[in-house]
């Protein structure tokens, strides 16, 4: 089909794929860190919203773009801390706490937005991140526009992939995080703090999730809308399983997903008259479900995922 080759051959398509993948890269990395330490964080959807709103509002109030990124990460970390308190310290249900965090973070964000801007009818705009111009690379034919004309947050996401992989596989800290998600007893028996490691992982992971939200309001768009996260958080939870809890595969999964999404948007433009638009919009969710089903049997879940830990406990 010519249509397909036309799409795949355009630099614009590849740039869009990477752009769509960026918030997912942050989200999947965040979820991956939490789950590697044994904590499922279903707060992700709400943390995305909180990160998007907080970062945007900070910039709107004059904090500057990087100030906004910092505020966004802090907002995520705060909700992460709450989730960690409930699930790690009190040992309560990770499912229920996560859903609760999502509801809370979403409603806090919406309420704050409405209260801060009571009278606006159309969402106010900020000066969002602009694509970087990397001398030499950005000007390459095809590859320049396809790969090297992204905003700084996209490059930040890629840096985090490398950083998370480095910490997880090359440092004693990573060893401890992987161990605490497999068998917390192994960590305690070696004199490390199970609770400390898990709280740290959830807080850092949640901060990363929030950056996924920040990308939406500060890079992909330049305003905050209600319902703009639209299930991206849940998709990340599915992608972590698909990525077998490995940063490299998480990047790959997010990129594949971005490519697919970018592709369907372009396909829609071509054959949208024949097929209703909703069918295309459904595809990302259906794709996530299918991906989950395909890998579920082989998935190597962290063994201690969802298991609360109390000191001195044995099997």
């Amino acid at each position: 089909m010519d249509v397909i080759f036309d799409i795949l051959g355009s630099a614009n398509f590849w740039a869009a794929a990477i752009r769509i993948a960026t918030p997912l890269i942050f989200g999947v990395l965040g979820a991956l860190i939490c789950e590697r330490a044994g904590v499922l964080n279903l707060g992700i959807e709400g943390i995305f919203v909180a990160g998007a709103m907080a970062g945007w509002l900070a910039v709107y109030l004059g904090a500057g773009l990087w100030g906004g990124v910092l505020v966004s990460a802090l907002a995520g970390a705060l909700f992460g801390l709450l989730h960690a308190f409930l699930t790690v310290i009190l040992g309560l249900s990770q499912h229920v706490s996560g859903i609760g965090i999502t509801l809370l973070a979403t409603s806090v964000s919406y309420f704050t937005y409405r209260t801060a801007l009571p009278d606006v009818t159309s969402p106010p705009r900020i000066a969002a991140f602009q694509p970087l111009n990397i001398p030499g690379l950005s000007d390459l034919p095809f590859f320049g526009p396809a790969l090297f004309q992204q905003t700084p947050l996209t490059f930040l996401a890629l840096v985090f992939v490398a950083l998370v992989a480095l910490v997880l596989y090359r440092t004693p800290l990573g060893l401890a995080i992987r161990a605490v998600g497999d068998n917390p007893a192994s960590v305690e028996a070696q004199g490390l703090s199970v609770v400390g490691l898990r709280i740290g992982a959830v807080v850092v992971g949640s901060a990363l999730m929030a950056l996924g939200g920040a990308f939406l309001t500060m890079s992909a768009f330049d305003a905050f809308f209600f319902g703009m996260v639209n299930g991206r958080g849940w998709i990340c939870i599915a992608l972590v399983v698909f990525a077998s809890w490995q940063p490299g595969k998480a990047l790959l999964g997010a990129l594949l997903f971005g490519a697919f999404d970018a592709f369907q948007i372009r396909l829609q433009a071509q054959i949208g008259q024949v097929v209703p638009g909703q069918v295309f919009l459904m595809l990302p969710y259906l794709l996530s479900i299918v991906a989950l089903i395909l890998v579920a049997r082989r998935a190597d879940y962290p063994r201690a995922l969802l298991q609360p830990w109390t000191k001195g406990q044995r099997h």
Partner: protein
Amino acid sequence: MTDAPVLLSLQNITKRFGPLIANNAISLDLHRGEILALLGENGAGKTTLMNILFGHYVQDEGDVCVLGDDGALATLPPGSPGAALKAGIGMVHQHFALAENLTGLANIRLGTEPLLSFGRESAARAKVRKIITESGLDVDLDRRVADLTVGEKQRIEILKALYRDAKVLILDEPTAVLTPQEAEGLFVVLRRLAENGLGVIFISHKLGEVLSVSHRILVLRAGTKAGELVTAQADRRAIADLMVGKTVAEVVRVPAAPGKILLEFDNVSLQSGGRQALSRVNLQLRAGEVVGLAGVSGNGQSGIAALISGLAVPNSGAMRLYGQDVTRASPRDLVNAGVARMPEDRQHDGVVGTMSVADNIAIEDVRSPAFSKMGLLDRKAMRERATAAIAGYDVRCPGPDAEARLLSGGNVQKLILARVLERDPRVILANQPTRGLDVGAQAEVHRRILAARDRGAAVLVISEDLDELFALADRFLVAHAGEVSDAGPSDGLDRGTIGLMMAGQARPPVGIAS
């Protein structure tokens, strides 16, 4: 031996759990180069004491003192595993504290290097290699722990302690998961380590191995120190009495009169978790006979239990009950056909903890007309049966409405006995029927099983405790690596033969092999 300096001293340790006194003013000294055995029944307080020593629990009274580098005994802060590690105490738990997704070396390094650094893998490897050469604890350091055998995992655990320059090594029931031959190998290592100056505390409830490995024995009974003696001068009978406290009448087994075959495995193979759990197993259970299945855990016993429980379907071969095919029967089909099953992990698989004793006794029968009509429960009938069972089987509980999770292990087992035996089963699977029970409860369970046999039931007892199998079984089977071989009648069979068969190193006794 007692001339060597004291490495570790426990002084008047007391620990209570609610009304239960788990440890009552226990004191002990451990010297350099000494292997001290801590002997006692299940529930005597051995594991609690060691968990206090290692900082997992906080004692209510008393102190733990360890020899410091300055040559003086220093008190450890209670409740801190970190402090215990630092002071040179290493512990090998009964359930290994290993991260299975990491390599052996990673598990050994865990927690020994600054978290925010790149670590010192090659230095660590060199040090572990040196320890391996000195101790003989050979194991592949670069395989994922999940892929190691139980014995290899235990070696990693010991290496973990030695890597941290432990002065004292505590082993909690280390032989429970080993073949007799592997256990002997462990003893060799322990003796060598003790000669090099390590102090070892060896926790066990098995008298024989304690006598063979230790220098000194400390006997615990019901949370108190029942006696302390030098192994070389100890008398087997005296220690046994110290351990149990009272003499329990041995259950007497009269010779069996085996009848016809009730349950039969015909060339049964089973895959489980991607592994070959059973390969071409043949076995026959006859009316009025107890068959004992010996083996180190993980050699196919759980596969056989799962098949008889209806929880698994063989990949090939057939199962027949009373001559009829039950290869694909569900748990309910088997229960209704008269198969009684006692699960290996009774707290996990045997009872629903948050449901009542009455519910748990009726659970196999809720759909039978005895307990329900038209889909509605007959609560009255359920409570009546529970009340009768509580009395008949001496289940100690506040009443039929008490939640099952409040029952002790022994009482849970009695509840399960009541549930399955009251249905007058023709085939009985007793999987680890007395694990973790005290001597009194053990005898009661054994008596019930033998009584059922005498009524004509076919019984399969799966146990890791050879003493239990010799007390109950008329005939022995041995499981090794998913294969089951027939060791013949129990009379005249010796432990050495069984041990070798458990290790897969011997053919069954000549003339009996089928």
